[in-house]
Structures are given as C-alpha cells and as structure tokens.
C-alpha cells in the first residue's frame, strides 16, 4: 500500500437553517437523563416514556438535519456549529462545537434510530425491574454522551464523549449490582477502558504539542507538518484508544464479561453503538492515517487478529449472550480491518458498522426475548425447540442470523464481502493473510451462529425436563408487542440495509466529503468475481459442519468434559484472561505489595525511628532534673566558671 495518500479536505461552513438545531440532538437526551436522575420516585410512572420520547425526538431532529444536508452540494455538506467557548486558557482554546458532516450524521441516525428502538424494547424488558426509571436515565445519559462523541468538532469533545459513554457503560454493566459477577464485570470494563483511554489522551497530547490546536479542521489541515515518528506514535496511540473502547486485541476480554448487564444494554452499547466508537475514531482521523502506511498496517493487523479470536472463541461458548458478544468482537475486527485498509476500506468499515448495528442489535434483542421467556437463563443447553413457541422471535432472530453469516443479498453479504474483497486486494502477503483469515472467520461465524440457532430454536425441548437455577419450571412464551416491534423493525433493517446502502454506492458517495472517495479495490491475490462465491461457499461449509455436529445429535444438557485442546482453549477465552492475569495483574499485585512493604518499613520506619530516638534520648536527659536545688546551683556555678574562664582566655591569649 502507498505510504502517503493525499487527503482532500472539505470546506467547512457555519451551520444554518435546520442544521442550527443540532444542539438539540445532545440537549434532548441529556435533559431526559437529568430529569430522570433528579425527579426521583415521582417519575416512576412515566419516566420510561420520557426516556423513549427524548431519544425519538433526537432521531427526528437528526432526520431533519440529514434531509437538509442531502439538499446541499457534496462540497457544502461539512458544517460546524460553535456553541460556546468551553476551555480558554493561554494557548489552548477549545470550542464546545459540533461538526455536522456525512460521517457524524450517519452515526447520529444510527445512535438515535437504534437507540429509540432499544429504548422502546426496554420498556417491556425492564417492566419488572423496580429501578426502571434509573435505567432509562442511564440509557439517556449514554445516548447524550455518544452524540457528544460523534458530533464534537475537536478531540477534547471526542474525549468528553468517550469518557461519558465509558461511564454509562460502567453503570449499566453493573446494573445488577447485587451480583458479584456483574460488579466485577463493570470494574473490569472500566479498568480495561482506562488503558485505552490513556492511549487516546496521549495521542491528543502529542497532537497538541506538535500542532498547538485540537480542532478537527485545523489538525487535518496541518497534520502534514508532523514528522514521521510522531505521526506513527499518534496513529498507534489512537488505535490503542480504539482497541479499549471497541474490545479489540489486546484489550478484548472485557467485552464478553460486559454481557452481565441487561440485554438491551448489550444490544445498544455493547453491540450497535459504543463499541463501534473505535471504528469511528479511525475513520474520523482518516487524514492522519492516510499519511502513514505503518499506522494503517497496525490497524489492519489488530483487526485481523481480533476477528479470528472472536470467531474461534464464539464456537465454544454455551452462553447465548457470550457467543453474540464474541461475534461482536469478531465483527468489529472486520470493521477495524476495513478502516485499516485506507481509502479502499473506510466507507466499507462504516457500511459494515451500520448493517452490523441492525442485525447484531436485532440478535441481542432476540436473545433478550428468549431469556425473558426462559427465566433469564442464558445457557443454550437448557433451550431447544423454541421456534414454535416464539414465532416472531424466531423469524426476526433468524433473519438477523442470516444477515450476520452473509446469506446472499441480506445485509451482511454486502458489507462483509466488500471488506473481504478489499482485503484480498492488498498487495503481497497482506492480501493473502488478511483476505484468507477474513474468509476463514466468515466460515467460523457461520459455524457458531448455526450452532446457536440449532441449540436454541431447533431440536429437542430440553427445558421440559429441566428447571432454571432459581428452581422454577420453564414456561416459554412470546414476548409482548413493545418488545417484538423493535425486533421486527431491526429485522427489516437486517434484510434490506445492506442492499439499500450499496445501491449505486449510495453510502460511499454520501460519506465521500468526510472520508474521501471510496477507491475501488483492484488486483490483488484473487479475481474479484470469485471472492463472493468463495465466501458464500466457506460460510455454507461452516453452517453444514454445524448442522452435522450439532443438529444431528441430541445436545447434552451438561457440558461435555473432557474436550480436545482447541475447545478447551476457546472455552477459556484463548487464555486472554490468564495472560492478563499473569502479565499485568500478578506483577501489579507484587509491585504494590513491595511498595507497601517499602512504605511500612522504609518511610514509616524512618519517621517512627526518628521519633523513638528523640523520645528515648529525652527520657534519659530528663533524669538530670533531680529536684535538688543544690545540684542546680552547682551546675550554675560550673557554667559561670566556664564562661569566666573562656572570657579570660580570650583576653589573655
């Protein structure tokens, strides 16, 4: 790949007309969160509808702005709105400003659109939870923070939103805070995100020292002034931030644990929106990544490694949400791979992000619906034969499943195949490695998703002879309309989004002002006409293997033990947690223990020792105070004699 790719930057105009309403996008959900947090129990009766309403209203505002923007020439579609001076000290001036361009508006529609559906679904899903109002407050807080993240026109606002979504994610993962596993998962997510956030902060610091400005417009105009080493450092540190937020290698292990949160949270935050912030970050910084081939290569490598990790581990889990979580890790790996390919991939990454937003959110909502019916059991070995009892869930989930594995002409087919084609088009070893592994992972995706479908909706009704952990019989039933309606909408999106967005390169042209024109991937390892057939064939093979191994045998209720080495490794997350434990956590514990020892013995020892020395010696000294006046008189005499003697010596020598 070319090391340096010139970037055409768009002219930036002031937002006017409908676009001047952009502040409402953030203000509405933020207001909803504020009211719900402060109103207390009085809002319990209507709070959830306020939560749904503010996000839906933001979606309407987003639609109005998008239609307004579509009416403009492509060159004029990048607009900014400065709300107020946020930080103004010495040389650092940061506006609280919004950047409305095709990229950010795409995200606005995704966040508020999918967000509204999932808010609606949560009304039903959380109906038995006494803290439902607080739940909606936190969801609204998340939407507001996510919109700050994508709409900000500078890196500081990006960071503000980045931390805001991190906070909301932490709160919501730990929603069932009485469960130790949920509390631990929340802490784990928070800590691993901190690692990434430090990378992002350092990247921003370097940008500031190099350029003295943090606005996107100025930074991208002048990024050419930064020398090579600093540029690579910036790109790698930005990627570290992206890895933390998006659950990419080597920071992927928090995302599956985050499934401890309620299922709508998993769907909205940990599948459709927040975890794609890393992809947004790399795409937004495309003018920076365009300048360094090394930076892009690192991004693509991380993407490929992650998509393999996610696909392999997904095959071994029995927990329906964890399978979907590893699937998310894997699919975000595809997106990161795509944006790592440079101008041939930015728009494809965003395309996959959008289609994935539909089908993965739909899959999670479907999984939530199944859990709702099955006393919150997540173990797929307890499911089986649910398709007749939950027809709507089955159909919507099935459509999401087909979209995810890339069934021809559904969403995933258009987005994933395009990424694999672009990966194969890379020169040299990269084409074979990236393309080959991405194809292999597509086969694995088909395998684990088919396994999930078969274990959940087909086969024997294993739940009839089992009880859930809390000792109740299972009575599966279809979910209420308020839950199925969003699932139906998302299923429709899963089917048609890919087709609609790629008609006449619709999305690529729309995003061109932000990301540059999509460069057609050419040449490379395999002829392009072959690749779609290859991918579909590999996926079909994966599905077939799943049918042969899972579908044709009764599923044991107990996990089979012992199993072969690869399955053991996959069940243990490919030892990611063990590696983190050994390399980071244990040495950290040792270090803190050593420091505590030094503090107790060294620092405290010196202080306490000095005090003991003074106390002891003064204890001895005070024995001189005998209370006998005559001994005091003697010492006075002795002192006087000494003074006189000294005076005389000075005088006579």
């Amino acid at each position, binding site marked *: 790949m070319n090391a340096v790719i010139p970037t055409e930057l768009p002219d930036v105009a002031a937002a006017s007309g409908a676009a001047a309403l952009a502040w409402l996008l953030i203000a509405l959900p933020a207001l909803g969160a504020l009211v719900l947090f402060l109103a207390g129990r009085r809002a319990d009766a209507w709070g959830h509808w306020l939560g749904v309403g503010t996000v839906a209203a933001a979606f309407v505002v987003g639609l109005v702005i998008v239609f307004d923007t579509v009416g403009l020439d492509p060159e004029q579609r990048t607009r900014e709105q400065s709300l107020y001076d946020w930080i103004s000290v010495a040389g650092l001036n940061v506006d609280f400003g919004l950047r409305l361009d095709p990229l950010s508006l795409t995200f606005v529609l995704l966040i508020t659109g999918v967000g509204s559906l999932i808010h609606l679904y949560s009304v039903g899903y959380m109906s038995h939870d006494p803290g439902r109002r607080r739940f909606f407050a936190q969801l609204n807080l998340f939407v507001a923070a996510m919109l700050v993240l994508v709409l900000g026109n500078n890196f500081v606002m990006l960071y503000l939103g980045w931390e805001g979504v991190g906070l909301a994610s932490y709160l919501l993962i730990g929603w069932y805070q009485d469960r130790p596993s949920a509390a631990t998962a929340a802490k784990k997510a928070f800590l691993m995100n901190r690692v990434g956030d430090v990378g992002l902060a350092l990247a921003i610091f370097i940008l500031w020292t190099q350029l003295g400005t943090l606005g996107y417009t100025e930074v991208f105009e002048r990024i050419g002034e930064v020398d090579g080493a600093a540029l690579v450092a910036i790109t790698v540190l930005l990627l570290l931030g992206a890895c933390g937020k998006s659950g990419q290698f080597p920071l992927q292990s928090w995302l599956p644990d985050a499934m401890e949160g309620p299922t709508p949270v998993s769907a909205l935050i940990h599948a459709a929106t927040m975890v794609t912030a890393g992809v947004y970050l790399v795409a937004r910084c495309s003018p920076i990544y365009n300048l360094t081939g090394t930076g892009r290569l690192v991004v693509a490598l991380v993407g490929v490694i992650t998509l393999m990790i996610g696909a392999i581990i997904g095959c071994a889990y029995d927990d329906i949400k964890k399978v979907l979580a590893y699937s998310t890790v894997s699919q975000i790996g595809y997106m990161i791979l795509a944006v790592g390919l440079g101008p041939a991939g930015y728009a494809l990454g965003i395309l996959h992000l959008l289609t994935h937003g539909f089908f993965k959110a739909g899959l999670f909502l479907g999984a939530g619906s199944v859990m709702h019916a099955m006393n919150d059991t997540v173990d797929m070995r307890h499911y089986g034969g649910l398709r007749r009892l939950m027809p709507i869930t089955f159909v919507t989930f099935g459509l999401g499943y087909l979209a995810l594995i890339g069934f021809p002409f559904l969403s995933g087919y258009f987005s994933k195949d395009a990424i694999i084609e672009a990966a194969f088009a890379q020169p040299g070893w990269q084409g074979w490695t990236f393309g080959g592994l991405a194809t292999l992972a597509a086969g694995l995706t088909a395998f684990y998703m088919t396994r999930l479908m078969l274990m959940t909706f087909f086969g024997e009704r294993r739940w009839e002879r089992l009880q859930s952990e809390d000792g109740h019989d299972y009575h599966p039933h279809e979910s209420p309309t308020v839950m199925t309606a969003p699932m139906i909408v998302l299923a429709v999106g899963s089917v048609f989004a890919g087709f609609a967005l790629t008609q006449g390169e619709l999305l690529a042209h729309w995003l061109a002002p932000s990301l540059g024109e999509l460069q057609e991937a050419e040449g490379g390892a395999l002829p392009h006409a072959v690749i779609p057939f290859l991918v579909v064939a590999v996926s079909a093979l994966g599905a077939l293997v799943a049918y042969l191994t899972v579908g044709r045998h009764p599923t044991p209720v107990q996990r089979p033990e012992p199993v072969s080495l690869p399955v053991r490794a996959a069940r243990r997350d490919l030892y990611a947690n063990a590696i983190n434990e050994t390399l980071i956590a244990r040495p950290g514990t040792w270090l803190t223990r050593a420091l505590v020892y030094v503090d107790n013995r060294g620092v405290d020892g010196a202080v306490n020792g000095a005090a003991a020395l003074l106390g002891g010696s003064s204890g001895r000294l*005070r*024995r001189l*105070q*005998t*209370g*006998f*006046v*005559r001994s005091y*008189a*003697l010492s006075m*005499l002795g002192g006087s004699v000494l003074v006189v003697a000294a005076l005389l010596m000075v005088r006579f020598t």
Partner: protein
Amino acid sequence: MTPTYYLLLSALLFTIGAVGVLVRRNAIVVFMCIELMLNAVNLTLVTFARINGTLDGQVMAFFVMVVAAAEVVVGLAIITSIFRTRRTASVDDANLLKY
C-alpha cells in the same frame, strides 16, 4: 591602704558564700550565704568605684541592695510557708519539682 586587699577580701567572702550555698542544707543558711555573695559583689563594686574615682560602682551597689532587700522579703516568705507545710527547712527535702 591598697585596693587589692579589698578585692581579695571580697573574693574570699564570695567563695565562702558560694561554698555555703553548695554544701549547706538549711534554707535559711543558704539564704544567708547568698546575701554574703551579694555583699561581696557590692564590696567589689565600691572598691572599683574608688579606684576609678567614679560613682558608677557605688550607684550599682545601691541597686544590688534594693534588689537584695526585695529578694529577702520574697525568699523568707517562701521559706516560711515551706516550713509551715513540711515542718522542715531543708532544701533537699523540697524536691518535688523533678522529672
């Protein structure tokens, strides 16, 4: 009449007083020895005033007498009250103020 003799006498008196303070236990005797030392100093002052032909020393001797008179009043009062409470005037017995 040489002034040296007066100085020698004064030194002798001072020494007797100092030794008395150090070796005697009776508070009254100690007190008298202190008076002896003060008067030895007075003698020295007057002698030097005589040698130098100025009045400074004599003036200073008057000051010492005034201070000594005041001190006697206070000191005797203290000794009397100690004697009343403890039935003794030995300085070694009044040793409560110690470590």
